[in-house]
Structure formats: C-alpha cells, structure tokens
C-alpha cells in the first residue's frame, strides 16, 4: 500500500463507518426497525451498534498493522489511523446513548433579552 493510501486508510474507515451508520439510521427509522426486537435491544440499535463496533475493530486492526517507528513515513499513517479510530469512537458513540428515531424540535426562546 502506498504512503498516501496508508495515510488516509484510518480516516477512510471513519468515513465509511459514519456513512453506513447514518444510512442505516435513516433506513431503520423508515422501515420501523426501532419497533422490532432483536434480543435485548431493538433491531435498529443492534444494527447501529454492530456497524459501529465493526468500524472500531477495523480501525484498531489497522493501527495494529502499522509500524510503530520510521519517521514521517510511518508517523503520518499512524496519526491517520488514530484520527480514524478516535473519530469513529467519538462521533458515533451516540448509538449507545440517544433515542433513535424521534425527531428533535427547537423550542422558540431567546437566550439573551436586554433589561
């Protein structure tokens, strides 16, 4: 794998995982997966958490495979792999904690009103 390809592999894993989870989220809500039971959780939650976990595993596996030393030729791919892994962890962790399909609406208030 070329230097450039290795350098973007980590962020690519994030991009693919992010796209898949976002698409599954939309599709699952439209298809009613939130109401389908899959063991202890809904099918929607299982699909999202499963996709997220796959992304994390892929990111960690990439990190494992990259050499630890070797100047910038090794450092940039490792930095890219860390970027991808942290981004996957941080941007998709809501699959664990938030409700899935209920739409959020903004209440109309103003934060700051002069005396």
């Amino acid at each position, binding site marked *: 794998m070329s230097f450039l390809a290795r350098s973007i592999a980590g962020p690519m894993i994030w991009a693919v995982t992010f796209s898949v989870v976002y698409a599954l989220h939309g599709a699952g809500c439209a298809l009613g997966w939130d109401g389908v039971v899959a063991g202890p959780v809904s099918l929607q939650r299982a699909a999202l958490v499963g996709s997220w976990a796959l992304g994390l595993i892929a990111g960690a596996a990439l990190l494992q495979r990259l050499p630890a030393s070797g100047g910038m030729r090794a450092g940039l791919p490792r930095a890219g792999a860390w970027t991808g892994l942290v981004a996957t962890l941080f941007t998709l962790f809501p699959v664990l904690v938030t409700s899935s399909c209920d*739409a*959020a609406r*903004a209440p109309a208030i103003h934060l700051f009103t002069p005396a």
Partner: protein
Amino acid sequence: MTDATIGAAAGTGAAAGEIAANAPQRALGLHRELDRAWANAPGWRGQITAVSHTTLGLRFMATALVFFAIGGILAMLIRAQLATPEGAFLDTEIYNQIFTMHGSIMMFLFAIPMLEGLAIYMLPKILGTRDLAFPRLTALGYWCYLFGGLILIFALLGGVAPHDGWFMYTPLSGANYSPGVNADVWLLGVTFVEISALAAAVEITVTILRQRAPGMKLTEMPLFAWYMLGTSVMMLVGFPPLILASVLLEIERAFGWPFFEVARGGDPLLWQHLFWLFGHPEVYIIFLPAAGALSTIIPVMCRTTILGYGAIVAAIVALVFLSFGLWVHHMFTVGIPHMALAFFSAASVLVAVPTAVQVFAWIGTMWKGRPEMHLPMYHVMGFFLTFVMGGLTGVMLAIVPFNWQAHDTHFVVAHLHYVLIGGFVFPMMAAAAYWMPQITGRARIKGLGETAFWTILIGFHGTFFLMHLTGLMGMPRRIDVYPDNPEWIWLNLTSSLFGFVMTIGFALFALDLVLQAWLGPRSPRDPWRAPGLDWAMRLPPPSYNFASLPGPGRLDGGAQAAQGLARGEGLLPGAPRGRREVLVTGVGSARPEFVAILPGNTALPLGLAGAIGVFVLMMLSGLYWLTLPALALVAALIWVWARGMARGRDAAPVEVAPGLTLPVHTHRQDTLGRTGAVCLLLADGTLFAALLFGVGFLSVVALGWPPPELTGDPELGAGLIAGLVAGLGLGVVAVRLGLRAQGRGGAVLPAAAGLLANLVALACLGWLAAAVLDDPTRHARDALRGVLTGYVGLHALIAAGMAAFALDQARRGEIVGARAGCLPAWRLWQDFAAVTALIAGAILLAQGAGG
C-alpha cells in the same frame, strides 16, 4: 536509445542524490531561448491566448479582487439599509437580490477563485516546475469563471439577480415561488463558475503529485503544497454534490421533473443535504489554502522553521475527512432525529481539534523564533485574533441546544464572517503583503499597508462583534426592516458605521497594492530571506520560472539557488527543442520519470468557454432546443482540443542531466493526462454517489411515497438494461484488446468494435427511455429514473466519442509502439461508465424495470 535503456536511465536517476549538475551556460542566452518557447504572444492576442500559470494566476486574483469590491459595495448597501429600523433605502425585492448576490459573489466569485489564483500562481514556483500540468485547462477555468461571473453581475444590473439567499433553499427557489429567471441565473451561473473550480482542482492535484522537483519527497514538500493537495481533493469531492443539486433544481424548474416538490414525491431537505454536503467542506476549502499561506509566512517572519510539520500534515488529513461529516449542523432545526443530531454535533466539536493543532503549531513557531513585525505579521496577528473568536463561536453553534436558539440569527452572520474574514481574508492579506515583491519585483511604500490593516481590523470587529449581540437578541438574518425592535437600533447603526470604516480600510489596502505595483522601488531578490523555491528566480518571475529545474541540493536555497538555476546548472536547462518541457516525477519518491511537453498559447480555451457560455445562455433564455447546437460545438471543440496533443511520430528521449536521459510523455501510459483523468473520475464518482444518496433519501424519507405503479413492459425493460450493460462491458473488453494490439499498431479493429459496442449501449438506452420509462414529471421516483438514465447515457456517449477518437488515432498511425494515444484515458472512462451503468441498471431493476 531504446525504451528499456530509457527506463533504466530513469531508474538510475531515482537515487536523487546521484543526479549530476549540468554545465553552466550563459544565463541571458538561456533566458532568450526559454522566453521564445514560454512567453505569451504579444499584444491583445497574447491576452486571449495565454495559458501561462503566472498570467492566469494573476488574472484569477485580480478578477477575484474586482468581484470582492462589488460584493463589498453590496455589503455597504445592506448596512446602509439596516442602519435605521425602517430604512427606505432599498425595497424588499432589491434587498433580497443584494444580500443573495453579496453572499454568492463572496463565496463563488471571490473566495474560491482567489485561492485558485494563489495556487495557480504559486504552486509551480514552490514545487520547482515551469507550469501546471494542464495549461489549457487553467485558461478554460479562467474564462468559465469570468463568463459565469459576468452572467451574475449583468443579472444584478438588470434587476433579475438571484433573490433566494446564497444557499438557494427550496421550495423558495423552486418554480412556484421564484417564477422568473432569478434562480436560474444562480443555478446556471454558479455551475458555470464551478467548472473552473473543478478544473483548478484537477490541475493542482496532478501538479503536486507528479511535478514536484526531483528529490522533493511528499514527506518533505513545503506545507503550502500539502494544504493545497488537501484543498484540491476536497474540491473534487465537495463540488459535485452542489453541481448535482443545481442540475436537479434547474431540471425541476425548466422541465417540471420533481425532486424537491413534496406533492410529487420530492423533498426540499434533499436540496439542503446536497447543498451543505458542499457548503460545509467549502469553509475548509477556503480555510486550508489560507492556512498554507500562514504556515509559509510565519516561520519566515519569525526567522525559524515551522514547529510540528508532521502534526500539521496529520491535522490537514484529519480536516479533509472530518469536514465532510459536519454538514447536518446547518440543518439542526429542520426536525432531525436526536441520534443523527448527536452524530453531527460530535463531529462538529471534534473538527476543532485538528484546527487547534495548527493554531498551536503556529503559536509554537512564533514562540521558538524571533518574530519580526513586518506587514505580513500584522495580518497574521489579525488572523489569530479574529479566527480564534470565530472558531469558538463555531464550537458554540455545534452544540445543538445553543444552535437552536441562534439559528438564522445575526449571531450566525457574525460567526461566519469571523471565520471567513479571519480565516481567509486576513491570511490572504498577509499573503499579498508577503508575495507582492515576488509578483511585482517591487517593494511596498511604507506606512499605507499598516494604516489599512488597523482600519480593517477596527472596522471589522466594530461591525461584526456587535452582530453576536443583535443575534442573541433575536434579530433574524435577511430582514430589511425591524420597526418593532427598537433595542436593535443602536447596535445596527454602530455596525453600519464600522462597516464603512472597514470599507475604507479595504480601499486603502487596494491602493497600497496598486501603488506598490506601479510606483514601488525595486525589491531585493529575496526581501524576507525565505528559503523556498518561489524566491529562487528573477523578480518579477520570467515566463518559464526556472531556466533549469531545481533538483536535490537546491530545494531550500531560496534566492541563493537562483543564480545556478538561471545558468542552467539544474535539470532540463533551456528550451533547445523550442518546446514547453517540464519534468514529471514519481508520486511518493519524486524520482524523475519522463519529460512532458506542454501545449503552447492558444485561443481554444476561450472558444470552448464561449461555447459553454452559449449553452448556459440558451438555457437561461428558455431556448432549450438551441442548447443542442451549442453542445455539438462544445463536443467539436473538445475533439480539436484533444487533437492538439496527438503525436504522429516518435519523439526522441531528452537528456535532462549528464547521464540521465528520459522519454517524453507520449511514450508512457502513466501520463499527467491519465492522473488527471483519475482525478476527474473521483469527482464524477462523487457526483454519482450523491445521486445515489438522493435516490436513497427520497425513497426512505420523502412523504409522497410509495410512488404510482410503473407502466412500462418489465421484460423489455430488463432486456434493454441488460443490453446497455453488455454494450458498455464489451467496450471494456475492446479497449483492453486495443491496448494489447497497440505495440504492433493494430488498434483499429478494437477501437471500431468499442465504438460499435457503445453505440449499441446508447441505442438500448434510447429505447429504454422512449418505451419503458414513465413520464418523469409524474413523480420523483420517475424523475430520478430519468436522471439515472441520463447520467448513464451521457457517459456512454462520451465513451463512444473516446472510442471514435481512438479509432481516428489508430487510423492515423498515432497508436503504435510505445505510443498509446488516448487508449489509457478511454480505458479509465469505459470502466467507469460500465460500473456506473451496472449500478444504475440494478437500481432501475430493483424499482421494477417496468410495470
């Protein structure tokens, strides 16, 4: 020399340190020889036939400054209107046109072209080459930019400018609510301008990857090039969704195919998604080149080297990717599920980290160096102050509950101006102050620049800081009067007054540039003692940049390297063959691989841009049938364009240094053109992916689904789709057979077979459209099927055109031996067309090939 020995010679050149220096020659003789090959034609003819990156880069920047001035005047009109609560200065319709045009001009006609111009002008000089990879494409990009921009400006003067806001939300911009041509002007004009952005992105990517000076490895290239590489890739991926959105909306407006109309299965949110898929990365597309300029300027001004080169490169890579995961934060209030809000909120917060890495690297660089407060540093300080504030309000807006409160208020207006003026305009002013001696060969007139800086800084913060407050007090953006809100009056009046102060500052800045170019004293060769290759030449730069190209040992010499290069001691000295020659190097290693011969001056780009302009004007006028001759003219000119690079004879290898002889590009398959084609297909693939996103989005989210039953014959539909894919697949086989037969000059038959296969595919497609597909105005599903079919048809048509071109080349004897002609590019295109047809066909079949 045989190809094998040429390859071996190139191979020995790989160990960059082994390249020997050429013997010194008389600099004046070399200059005259090179200038004959590279200079623009004299007089007015030179103005329309120039393809030089120096000329066109400057032209891009000068034109962008003119549009900046127009956009600035519009901003002053807005501020004049808002200075009082019931301003009678502008009526609502004109006000709507003015704020729409202000945003559109600043984004599409100033910021992007300005960064393109800077990159077009600087990159070859920084990378140590003589021009960009595709000079005619540079010129085409400029003319498209100019003509597209003029369409918008003339529409403004004619009172029919776009009036739906610079992001043109549907349904307001749809035919029902914007029945005139105003919205069409935006859709067609901006798309016309975007041709130049894509052209520049291809140019920049290929030039950085393939034309760096020998020995300049990727891991060691100047940071400006890293930033521009990130920017150009983002442009290739970021612009296609907007182009698709504009095409879809224009089709909806012109022909009634519903994509965004709820009643017929469309959804206005599809526009928002596609627009912001472009729109948010756009912020980083604008910021990254500015950051590249900062990373160049700060170490020089601080008499040190950049701190954290590797960390900055890693931050660039992170920004390039993460910036594509933020777009929904512009849509937080449209009613999106909590979980999706959280994804995009988290990504919007995370993107601050790589941005902060850069800011801390710049601060660290200043800390370890000895900052000298020359004019560029003033603007760098203005950047820090302004951009950090804009970045922090960006983090505030990334938090969903705050975003809900501040959405669509002047707080957002303040934030975006802090980011764009802080993150782009101040760095660009720093860049102007830094590189003006390089561009003009003249030093500046002291005092005026500093006055301009302080006036702009004070005027800017006085104008926009207060908008945070008016926004938090609930003032919506884009209103023209506020008679019921006396609490906003003094803030708006003060903003307006400072707005005029800022305008005076920009006028002083422009005056400073003009005076420097016109009356400034002669600049020393390297006024900043900078190490880059951009200073290793005469000032102002000659038409060819380097009399001989820098190689190992001469990559960071700054002005000290200039003399040896001017005497021909570098690589590929002079122009003894009277051609425009550049060195092409390996992507990662920067090993010299071959010599590319670039095209000379030509009016073809102007003609092609003019033909595209005729197409746009026919669309705008509603004369849709007349677009067909315009398109035929475009196709004919593209054919002439491609013929211009065809070679009927073998070209002798070129000795670029003692012991290093390289083939010319016609004897290679991995040409610059092939790399450019890969870049173009990346953009094309993104557009196709965005179209698939549209299909998926409407199928899943839109309210007016399920659609009505299909009425076509399903068996006929399936058969025609199979015929289409088989035809394109046979084209894939044919082009490979052509490449196999290339050596013995036997490509005529495979090219003819490829042409026939593509024509069969087109016939199947035409039959499908005529006999099977339903009326595309009936429902969004049918409209999407029509667009998918059209997309595949366009690609099959171009594939047929490439096969015809290959056939012509083969018959002329231009595909023989090591010369592959257009076969490598055709192969790429044919493969892409076949794969996308397969995917599109599968979707059509999944939806039901017919009733």
